């Protein structure tokens, strides 16, 4: 059963990894992803941080669906998603995702899959705080294309 959590305060990826590894169940491979608030926008303007608006209940459900789909798609995989909400400063972790599996290929694919879907389907609304003003952000075409990668036939 996937572990999914929203964090209002700092997200400490090393503690999340420790917790995930402590739940080990004989898996040989654990892949984790840490997403960090970048100090610059896509067009290179300095960014001090961002605000992640969320819809209590619906946002948790969107994360849980993605984690559960990953466990179902990559059989024998265990998944975890920890996501920040609210104010996140540049350089702080926004998201931690982990996948454990018997073999490394499925652990890599499960983590990659979760991140691609989180980038388009996680119920967040992101306001970037640029030094020249604040702006609400939407997923890029690349994010949509990444998610699309998984829409073809099941792997393996």
């Amino acid at each position, binding site marked *: 059963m996937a572990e999914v959590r929203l964090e209002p305060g700092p997200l400490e990826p090393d503690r999340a990894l420790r917790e995930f590894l402590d739940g080990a169940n004989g898996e040989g491979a654990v892949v984790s992803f840490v997403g960090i608030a970048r100090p610059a926008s896509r067009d290179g303007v300095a960014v001090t941080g961002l605000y992640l608006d969320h*819809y209590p209940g619906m946002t948790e459900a969107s994360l849980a669906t993605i984690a559960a789909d990953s466990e179902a798609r990559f059989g024998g995989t265990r998944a975890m998603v920890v996501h920040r909400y609210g104010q996140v400063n540049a350089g702080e972790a926004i998201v931690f995702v982990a996948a454990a599996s018997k073999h490394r290929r499925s652990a890599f694919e499960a983590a990659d899959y979760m991140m691609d879907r989180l980038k388009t389907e996680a119920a*967040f*609304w992101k306001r970037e705080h640029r030094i020249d003003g604040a702006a609400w952000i*939407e997923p890029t075409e690349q994010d949509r294309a990444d998610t699309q990668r998984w829409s073809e036939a099941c792997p393996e």
Partner: protein
Amino acid sequence: MPIHWCLESRLRILLFGSLGEQIGREIDADLPAEGCSVASLRMLLAERDPAFAPLARASARACVDQAIVREDYVIRPGQEVAFVPPLSGG
């Protein structure tokens, strides 16, 4: 017309992201007792206050009980209604 308020139901509408910033986190609307479609609700709101115009745009998706619904979905009293901008993702 006391009958009027008796046949209507107060609906609380939640707004997120840029919609929440522009309009407010929550607005109220009167919902006919027999319910009304998402499309009708958008028109009612936009006619009531010009500030609500962004809610009439297709990019503002309607959620009922935390699931995105279509334009012909009929909202009933007691349901949780929200309008959300496109998700920005995690």
